[in-house]
């Protein structure tokens, strides 16, 4: 049956609203990462720091499609974006990065260990491949309770070469657990490209070898990612079985702050290659699409930019004015 004009325009409204939110989220992630970089160089942030610039669609196309709380998320140390998408306040993320008591882990975790259980976020993990065996257990708990929830587990292309990942895949496939794997294929594991680390670079085949349905998806396009995520989530929620998405993308900056500072990235890629990928920028792409569909005007985009910058600024003010953790909390939380 053909849709009425009213129906079409209300669907349009929903699309417009949803995409505007996702656009805002991607801009927030980008601006947040840029400011974090600056704060690191002001020595307000220490430790390791891994940015998500260029990979925003992997988070914005998936996490907002989840039911939080209820569903669960696990990811790597490259985790600022995931926390923001889960709904952790930018202030609590920034405060964690600055090691403040008001941080999402009370200052004990830092950049690699953001966490927010109330929003279903079970944390970033500093160990390559580390979250994948954990996802098996989370998926098991969901199945055990008989709920329709899903565990989403992010990990990198480099992690595909960890033994534990394959043990977990096999068991997730064997027990048919409701886990969505998101392979963040940003082409490199530190200084090693996929072709230099991987004998069989068809990652989907590897998931399928363990009984997990999978597909490869363009991770530079939010709409495509969102569609794939919904397809995967539907499949998991209706069948209870796992799903695997390889999302192709690119990290614009060095692996981490060290790689940036030493320009170590010059040993494994050229500036031209980086620029070429930037032509496919997921934020610019979504903005173009939205403008073409009449969902967004340049003025509105500018306004969102401004609001986001204010939000990031507020998170910095919040973090910088927060106290350090109390010294006598050192021995708290070793045990429950």
């Amino acid at each position: 049956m053909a849709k009425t004009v009213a129906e079409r325009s209300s669907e349009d409204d929903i699309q417009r609203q949803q995409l505007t939110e996702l656009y805002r989220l991607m801009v927030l992630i980008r601006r947040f990462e840029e400011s974090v970089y600056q704060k690191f160089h002001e020595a307000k942030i220490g430790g390791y720091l891994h940015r998500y610039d260029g990979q925003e669609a992997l988070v914005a196309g998936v996490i907002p499609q989840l039911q939080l709380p209820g569903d669960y998320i696990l990811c790597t140390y490259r985790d600022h974006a995931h926390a923001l998408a889960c709904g952790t306040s930018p202030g609590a993320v920034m405060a964690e990065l600055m090691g403040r008591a008001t941080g999402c882990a009370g200052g004990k975790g830092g950049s690699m260990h953001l966490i927010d259980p109330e929003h279903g976020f079970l944390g970033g993990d500093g160990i390559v491949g580390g979250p994948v065996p954990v996802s098996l257990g989370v998926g098991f708990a969901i199945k055990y309770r008989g709920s329709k929830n899903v565990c989403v587990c992010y990990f990198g292309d480099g992690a595909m070469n960890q033994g534990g990942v394959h043990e977990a895949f096999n068991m997730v496939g064997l027990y048919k657990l409701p886990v969505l794997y998101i392979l963040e294929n940003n082409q490199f594991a530190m200084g090693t490209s996929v072709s230099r680390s991987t004998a069989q670079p068809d990652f989907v085949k590897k998931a399928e070898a363990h009984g997990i349905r999978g597909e490869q998806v363009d991770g530079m396009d939010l709409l495509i990612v969102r569609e794939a995520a919904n397809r995967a989530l539907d499949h998991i929620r209706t069948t209870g079985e796992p799903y695997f998405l390889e999302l192709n993308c690119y990290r614009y900056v060095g692996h981490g702050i060290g790689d940036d500072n030493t320009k170590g990235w010059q040993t494994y890629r050229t500036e031209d290659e980086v620029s070429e990928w930037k032509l496919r920028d997921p934020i610019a792409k979504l903005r173009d699409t939205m403008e073409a569909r009449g969902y967004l005007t340049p003025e509105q985009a500018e306004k969102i930019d401004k609001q986001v910058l204010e939000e990031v600024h507020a998170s910095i003010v919040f973090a910088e004015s927060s106290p350090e953790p109390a010294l006598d909390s050192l021995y708290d939380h070793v045990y429950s």
Partner: protein
Amino acid sequence: MATMRYLQAIRLAITQEMERDPNVFICGEDVGQYQGTYRVTEGLLQKFGPMRVVDTPISEIGIAGLATGSAMAGLRPVAEFMTWSFALEAMDQLVNHAAKITYMSGGRIHCPVVFRGPAGVGTQLSAQHSQSMESWYAHTPGFKVVMPYTPADAHGLLKQAIRDDSPVIFMEHAGLYGTQGDVPDDPDHVVEFGKAVVRRKGKDCTLIGYSRGVHMCLRAAETLASEGIECEVIDLRTIVPLDMDTVVESVCKTHRAVVAQEEWRNVSVGSEIAARIYEMAFDQMDAPVERIAGADVPMPYAKNLERAAIPTDSDVVAAVKRTLA
């Protein structure tokens, strides 16, 4: 003598041993094309080629297996763990295979492998990346455990490790990579295992350290000297074998001892040294052995908490004063 940094001394040792023995090769994550995460292996791929400088995937079990198996088959691998925290992935290959094969085979197989990489705590790397776990390996029969403090020792001990027919755990300290020191020119400069060195003479209290713990001890000794307290500082250099002769000789003179380490205190190297001092020189001691160690917590990220969790020279100073009180 040439003056160089700790990490250059390690690179020099690897280079010399690779030149000396065609069976020596290195492997690990980003050791080749990327030139090493900490630049320890810079230039080696260009010099020795991809058969002898092997870039691996992020597969620690694979790295440990590559090294262990090739050592059993006659090569002399030097395997790098990007940091020792990641060796945890490979614990089975290390403990159940590399460490045991010689004994299990009744001595019929040797496993001349060196596992090396940076260890140590600090720089806000937090719980999963900032930890020191030497006692895990020292606890395991079959491993020799080496933790150099100076560039010269890093050089001579690593060369000895590569020449040794047993598996060697060689723990560098990322915080020492930039420190400078003189390294002998002799291409056969090796430092024998199980020989501690006295880094400073004193009569009032013996300070025992290894790796960056020696730095803590030397600074404490300096401070205490200005107050008229003379400490003897011993650098163990190797945890296994452990040179208790040097330690006992010193405590027989000072009658007091402080062990300083970065690793956790519970069931640690310091515990072992204290126990052995009691076994070997109980009647010589005028005060209980003090142990200065990392707080028994996963390393917190926040600067102030991290500072509270990592031992410093002022903790050593306070401990020495307690032994003298």
